[in-house]
């Protein structure tokens, strides 16, 4: 029963909402989204001050500790306002990889800066022909002197261009598809041989193709044991999934509130369209999908700390499937119920819909996670 919020978490939730309510109206968000980074470094510094960047970082390294539930609360709040800052890529994925794989020395060197807002990370794990298979790593790390030479193409690396360092998966042994032989490296974004083709994303963020053309890393840039990174990557991605599921919960709630208000205010044939039974039931379906998604996501967030990786994976994949189906229903219906207004870029509605749609494409879609869930034994 640990997946209901404590009083502290409820307070935390309120503080997140109060920040975003002030800073994230539609116009401000649009302006940020069109800026070069696609987000605000001032906000980022403010997040650090508020301690949000210390979540999930051990106290020994200047963080605040905290659980996956805390992270989910934060991401849900971010979803409510479509926050653009790279919390997912830098903290959940980058910070998560450090927590799980870095040596104490690496942690001491990096975590304080990360938690303090001075260091931004990106996590480059996907590849063009891999689809959602985390073992399909074709990027090669060839041993060379005291270090490695990296060659390959990492695709759709979120917020790569604004990151100071990129954590890259590359193969030190085995063939494409093998779980063994994958390693993680800490790479300077600005190092020679690291070529970024950066672009905006559909949902107003930033990503890049990262092409590694004999990029050099030293043996000290290896994160964790050589060849053993697959389990680390899987654990990081499972956290990222909980993060985007929680974000989707926030997005869906906002979409439902917007739609409810629209049904109340919009009149046709002389009455508010919310009086039409078919539209009422559509909103009820959205509401139900959201309630169920929220309950399951928070339960999965609580399960993520589970020692057993199969139990964690089952919980995470169940949440992603639920969110995938609910997100498609809630997003599409929100647009439909807004009629023509739903199609315009003038309402923030479309931005929420687009972000929700993109969450389905990240870290494995519904089909992928349904299959993963079905293949895992019940615990």
């Amino acid at each position, binding site marked *: 029963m640990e997946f209901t919020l404590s009083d502290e978490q409820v307070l935390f939730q309120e503080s997140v909402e109060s920040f975003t309510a002030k800073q994230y109206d539609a116009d401000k968000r649009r302006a940020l989204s069109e800026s070069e980074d696609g987000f605000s470094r001032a906000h980022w510094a403010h997040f650090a001050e508020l301690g949000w960047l210390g979540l999930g970082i051990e106290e020994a390294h200047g963080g605040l500790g905290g659980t996956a539930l805390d992270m989910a609360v934060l991401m849900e709040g971010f979803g409510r306002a479509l926050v653009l800052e790279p919390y997912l890529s830098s903290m959940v994925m980058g910070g998560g990889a450090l927590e799980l794989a870095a040596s104490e020395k690496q942690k001491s060197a990096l975590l304080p800066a990360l938690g303090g807002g001075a260091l931004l990370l990106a996590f480059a794990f996907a590849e063009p022909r891999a689809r959602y298979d985390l073992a399909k790593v074709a990027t090669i790390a060839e041993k060379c002197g005291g270090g490695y030479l990296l060659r390959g193409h990492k695709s759709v690396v979120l917020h790569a261009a604004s990151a100071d360092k990129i954590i890259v998966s590359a193969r030190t042994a085995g063939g494409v598809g093998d779980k063994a032989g994958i390693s993680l490296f800490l790479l300077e974004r600005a190092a020679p041989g690291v070529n970024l083709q950066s672009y905006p994303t559909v949902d107003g963020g930033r990503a890049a193709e990262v092409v590694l053309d004999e990029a050099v890393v030293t043996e000290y840039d290896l994160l964790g044991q050589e060849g053993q990174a697959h389990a680390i990557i899987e654990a990081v991605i499972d956290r990222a999934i909980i993060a985007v599921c929680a974000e989707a919960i926030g997005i869906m709630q906002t979409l439902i509130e917007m739609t409810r208000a629209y049904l109340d205010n919009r009149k046709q044939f002389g009455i508010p369209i919310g009086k039409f039974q078919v539209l009422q039931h559509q909103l009820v379906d959205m*509401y139900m999908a959201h309630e169920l998604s929220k*309950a*399951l996501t928070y339960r999965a967030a609580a399960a993520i700390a589970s020692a057993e990786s199969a139990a964690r994976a089952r919980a995470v994949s169940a949440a992603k499937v639920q969110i995938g189906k609910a997100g498609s229903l809630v997003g599409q219906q929100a647009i439909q119920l807004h009629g023509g207004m739903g199609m315009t870029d003038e309402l923030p509605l479309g931005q929420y819909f687009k972000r929700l749609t993109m969450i389905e494409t990240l870290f494995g879609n519904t089909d992928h996670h349904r299959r993963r869930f079905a293949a895992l034994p019940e615990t």
Partner: protein
Amino acid sequence: MEITLSSADAAFQSDVRSFIEAALPGDIKSKVELGQHLEKDDYVRWHKILHTKGWAAPAWPVEYGGTDWTPLQRHLFEEELARASTPRLMPFGLSMVAPVIMAFGDAAQKQHFLPRILSCEDWWCQGYSEPGAGSDLASLTTKAVPDGTDYIVSGAKTWTTLAQYADMIFCLVRTSSEGKPQTGISFLLIDMHSPGITVRPIRTMDGGYEVNDVFFDEVRVPQANRVGEENKGWTYAKFLLGHERTGIAAIGRSKQELRQLKVIAAAEAAGDGSLAEDGAFAGKMADLEIDILALESLVLKIVADEAAGRTPGAEASILKIRGTEIQQRLSELALEAIGYYANPYIAEAQEAGWNEPPVGPEYAATVAPHYFNWRKASIYGGTNEIQKNIIAKMVLGL
């Protein structure tokens, strides 16, 4: 995704599991597992076993014979009951009329009826729906006319579950035709053995006789059997509806049926392996299992809210809608799993003790009737459409 339990709750769960395992008669367990028809005696025997243990009505206040279990423990208890293939405890007495009597009944009613409900001395049924009224409950016409210290009741009720077994019925009757339809209704407790009552079983399309018409022809009922005030019955009925809580999601039953579905899928051949290994079917089972997990999560959240003193709102309607959708889907996938063997219909094979060689796998005999029977789930107790109307109004304010 097991529920993570405190050690006290884990010990509780283990106690409950051991007790049930030891106490449930084997013949009853076998009928439930095979989906065969249960007889009245099966229900009553099991109820009395729980009663002897003090567990017939965990949700009741201790003073009336209930327990001091937490909402989570009550949830775990329900789950263990389902897991062990026990017969349903009939809700009509325990969780429908009893809370009304506790809240609005007089001392004599409490003293007389509650112990008999707890011990299953009286089997209750519910007299709400009427022919022609359906979901529009307030338009009921069964009349109760005062006559001395009695009422004379005339009219008809329908869809009355297991009325053929019942000793008592709680009824909504019309005591006044003035004002809004809701304002002239009273809540009566009627002895089913009274002269003038006729029960006519309705055969449902699955071939079973589970529901009935109940006809009242000038039935004499003491006014002392009226709960609360005359013409205030609608209030008590709404209280009753609001009182149904998390049990309506039937998580425990659904998890048990999912386990059974997996057994069937593993036994059925498909391609070079079993149906459980078939991608499309496995995907559907996974979807259903995730649906159950999500609904269970919501139930647990509501249970935790209750424990923290927060009153749940119209979530019961979500639980009803999703719970019945899941139950229907389970029955549909089982039907799909057995392929051609959905076709044979051997009525006797649904009864215990049938000794002919089975047609097809033993588990197949009751699958199609179960599928047909469970179409009722989205209809009875307020159709799922009505439930959505309730959410639209009560929660979304539309």
